[in-house]
């Protein structure tokens, strides 16, 4: 068995300084001695390889670079070593391994500039994407035969039906928490019965739809971005285009329609389940019978609260799906980009939903649906 790579500086027969290398000079063994070898003080006039038991390109490379560093000749090389040395001869490269990188005083302003221009490009991109979406919607209306019903149904299932359990559970718990916490606070005024108003109005008007939109962004917005992004990486989107299939029509429209159609249903469902959750709390903690709680909802919640929720829901669905598809279509280059774009799809989707929700809140109050 090989042992260790070793070296020694000796006086040769001819009075020259000889560096004798011995043992295996392999990628697995040179790591230990590489630094010492390079730190050797010259002059070295000859490098003797006759005691080297095994050598590979890494060992040969090391011998080569020592020899050129000290301008020493190499002797005693075996046939294999000679062949390796021959192959490595003339390769001297000082190219950086990592991608070129500017110094940091250039990098920081550059990154800021990139952000600014990137934001502008992003706005152009989103507007352009919306335009393309409207155009392909238009052409689909003119040529309804091209519409992909199967894809739409599939997406309806993925976005809507398969989200029912998780959204139901989430909403139920939210209803429970609102009712329970609300009751504790309202009890201070002796107004526990107003818990019904609290739960009914806040879930139908705000939380049902908002939480559903956040859940859909996390479940489906991210899935849209990752799917479309991966298809871009594998050139599937390009392949579609060359075959004459518009990726907008085949990929984006069904997903966006699915989200727009499903969000009102999911939002209403979420609000309903949350109210049921509140009713449970009413039954077991507040002494309001379950059915009484539900029938009180009809009396205390104005109908326009339901409309507020139902108007907001498709808009939220549109925003979430747009963010997912837009970022998916922006992917290019490598797999890291898919991850980055998926994150951005979820973050921008949720953020935009919350901002728009604030506008809606003010708007509906102003028009008298307060």
């Amino acid at each position, binding site marked *: *068995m*090989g*042992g*260790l790579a070793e070296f020694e500086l000796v006086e040769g027969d001819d009075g020259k300084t000889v560096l004798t290398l011995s043992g*295996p000079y*392999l*990628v*697995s*063994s*040179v*790591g*230990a001695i*590489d*630094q010492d070898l390079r730190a050797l003080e010259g002059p070295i006039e000859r490098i003797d390889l006759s005691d080297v*038991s*095994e050598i*590979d*390109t*890494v060992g040969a*490379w*090391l011998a080569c*670079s020592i020899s050129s560093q000290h301008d020493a000749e190499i002797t005693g090389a075996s046939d*294999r070593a000679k*062949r*390796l040395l*021959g*192959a*490595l001869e003339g*390769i001297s*490269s*000082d*190219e*950086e*391994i*990592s*991608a*070129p990188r500017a110094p940091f005083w250039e990098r920081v302003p550059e990154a800021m500039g990139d952000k600014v221009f990137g934001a502008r490009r992003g706005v152009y991109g989103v507007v352009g994407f919306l335009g393309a979406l409207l155009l392909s919607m238009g052409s689909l209306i003119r040529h309804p035969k091209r519409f992909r019903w199967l894809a739409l149904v599939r997406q309806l299932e993925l976005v809507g039906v398969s989200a029912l359990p998780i959204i139901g559970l989430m909403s139920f718990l939210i209803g429970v928490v609102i009712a329970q916490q609300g009751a504790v606070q309202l009890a201070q005024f002796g107004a526990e019965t107003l818990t019904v108003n609290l739960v009914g109005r806040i879930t139908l008007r705000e939380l049902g739809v908002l939480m559903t939109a956040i859940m859909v962004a996390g479940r489906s917005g991210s899935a849209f971005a990752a799917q479309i992004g991966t298809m871009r990486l594998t050139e599937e989107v390009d392949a579609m285009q060359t075959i004459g299939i518009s990726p907008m029509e085949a990929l984006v429209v069904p997903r966006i329609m699915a989200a727009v159609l499903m969000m009102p249903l999911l939002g209403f469902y979420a609000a309903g389940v949350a109210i049921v959750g509140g009713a449970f709390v009413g039954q077991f903690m507040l002494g309001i019978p379950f059915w009484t709680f539900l029938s009180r909802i009809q009396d205390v919640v104005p109908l326009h609260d339901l409309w507020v929720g139902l108007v907001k829901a498709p808009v939220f669905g549109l925003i979430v799906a747009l963010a997912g598809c837009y970022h998916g279509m922006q992917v*290019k*280059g*490598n*797999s*890291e980009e898919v991850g980055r774009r998926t994150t951005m799809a979820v973050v921008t989707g949720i953020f935009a939903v919350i901002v728009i929700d604030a506008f809606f809140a003010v708007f509906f109050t102003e028009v008298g649906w307060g």
Partner: protein
Amino acid sequence: MAQDETGRELGRHERYRGDYPIVVEGLTNAFGEQVVHQDLDLKVKRGEILGVVGGSGTGKSVLMRSIIGLQRPTEGDIHVFGRSVIDSDPEEDIGIRNRWGVLFQGGALFSTLTVGENVEVPLKQFYPDIEPDLRHEIARYKVVLSGLPEEAVNKYPSELSGGMKKRAGLARALALDPELLFLDEPTAGLDPIGAAAFDNLTRELKETLGLTVFLITHDLDTLHEICDRVAVLADKQVIAVDTVPNLMELDHPWIQDYFNGPRGRAALTAQALDELRRHMDEPVAAHAVKALDKANSKKDKA
């Protein structure tokens, strides 16, 4: 094996000296109902370039994946460097994974790393005690050895052409100075000149580095030019392993179609022309080959 003070194995110091670095015995691979290999045997000799041919979907890639332990066979034994690869997880260290290099069909370069960093990955993984300076140098000369221009080291895979990606994949496969090299259709998708250059490179590297090469290919020129032996995959088995001229004598229908079809003959003619050129003047050689070819096609018609 020698141990350093931390008790870690210092790694291999000895090349494989046996005759057959790869031995496959009674290999059966099935995906559900679909049987890809049935009782397949194959031995690869040390120091040869073994070409592996077979129609599309005959399981060439699956055979390679089984040998490198990525695909657990349904049945059979596979020994690489005398050690079984069957009963080990792909992540488990069985002391041979640093002794082979693999070039996957699609290149499989890490897309978030530059070419140079790609080559460094196996080095970092197996030999963390190599200093960064030396590691960078190794990565650079491996890239140059694989026939890429020096500037390619800091390019990302998405910035390379198909042929350059193949070479970058080869550089990564060679990162650890392996004894065994697996190439899955390395010249597929390359232009003829690029393919010929890649063939020469494979041959040259095999000679200088003393490699054993397991080469899956569809390229008849590659088979004629650089393969020492060729294994033919058909009917779920390796039906023959031999030199190309010997294979052409066999009268299995697929082998006949493959080597003696129009493309097979063209490759053969090209090789004969090359051979003759070495001994005669160009016009004479071309004339001789034309005559030979005519005689051949007449024989076919008869």
